[in-house]
């Protein structure tokens, strides 16, 4: 069984989590151009890499960040937004 560590609830089966997409800084909608906004809304860095992503632990509603290798599906770190990684 594949498991993931929720920063609040600890190790849980992957089925308890939902993927929320890549973590991307949002440009200010009122200040950026239409093109920049479209780039933010639609475009992705779609090639395989270690990526920072939003995930949600469904049972408890905790949203957090995971760093994951999208070629091997190895989850390197998970932590709450605002805290950085590098600690268990």
């Amino acid at each position, binding site marked *: 069984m594949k498991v993931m560590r929720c920063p609040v609830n600890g190790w849980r089966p992957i089925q308890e989590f939902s*993927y929320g997409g*890549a973590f991307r800084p949002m440009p200010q909608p009122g200040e950026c151009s*239409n*093109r920049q906004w*479209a780039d933010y809304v639609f*475009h992705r*860095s779609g*090639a395989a890499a270690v990526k920072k992503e939003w995930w949600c632990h469904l049972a408890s509603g905790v949203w957090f960040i995971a760093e994951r290798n999208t070629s091997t*599906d190895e989850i390197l770190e998970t932590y709450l937004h605002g805290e950085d990684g590098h600690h268990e």
Partner: protein
Amino acid sequence: MSRRYPEPRMFRCPDRLKPHYDAVIIGAGGHGLAAAYYLARDHGIRDVAVLEKSYLGAGGTGRNTAIIRSNYLTAEGVRFYDESLRLFRDLSADLDLNLFYSRRGHFTLAHSDATLRTMRWRAEVNKHLGVDSELVGPEVIRRECPQLDLSCGGHTPVLGALYHPPGAIARHDAVAWGYGRGASQRGVEIHQQTEVTGIRVQGGRVAGVETNRGFVETGKVLSAVAGYTPAVMEMVDVRTPLEVHPLQACVSEPLKPWLDTIIVSANLHLYVSQSSRGELVMGAALDPYELHSTRSTLDFVEGLAGHLLELFPFLGEVRVLRQWAGLADMTPDFSPIMGKTPVEGLYLDAGWGTWGFKATPVCGKTMAHTLANDRPHPLIEPFRLSRFEEFDLVGEKGAASVGH
């Protein structure tokens, strides 16, 4: 017999890359090979190399569940896929190869009022554009597929279906091999084990491609690499909205023929047909998160088997023979991305997600036209890459997510 009358090779394998080609196609999947075929046959452009990092048909082309249909939701989609269906009908004769093209009738079951509503919408769009497609009640489903338990064990009864009589299946490998042979006979070179590692651009124009076997000069490059598109487009710093997810499938052990229709249930995330070898060919929804790997999971077969038994309870003793996965390059609007790119001479055929096999012939035709004329074919104009920054999407989700 085979020693005295050896089967000729399907395509030539030149051992050396030439320093220059008029056009280079990245990816020997169905789309790349079909484009090469029509470039040579219809446009007289024969000095073409198809470069494939692995073997012919290694990508989605050899991994799909081979469903062909045109009952989409948007007018743009219906016109495009219907042209593909039309091309598929004579393709065996055209390529002089039996593709086992088999018309089955395609049922997309509705287990809820909301699904029924989308199906009525699709049926009306389809009929308006001359596609044989209609909303039918349980009686018709019972007549065409008597083995199906319409009550779904009382759990989520089937209320009706979108019925598309021309829905078909074909041998996917044969499609790729047929196009490959036809292209090769007309002078196209197919190079396997040849990976494109870079695209050289000079003054905003394509100058050639870097490969693991050296540099090749060319003024026209078609990227037809489906699930690998983001990596290729990164070589020229062009951003796309693609997100890659695995799509899994499996087959059962061969059974006596009993299922001659294609059954899809969006609510149960399941689709099934029976191949000419007797195997049940089955698939489900996309894997839930981004992953560039063709690993298989037990989760997938477990979930699929549960849903299959709701529709066909008598299959309880049947065993799964094989399972596998392929990469689906998903777009936000579930329509493909085709045509020109910001780099002159670089053309894109991508965004094939879970629905690109059926489009193989029409993609080949329209991309060949686009390369030859440096102008998008009218059928693919709505699918241009720039539609996203123009906020002019072609919303096909209702028809393409698990519909195949």
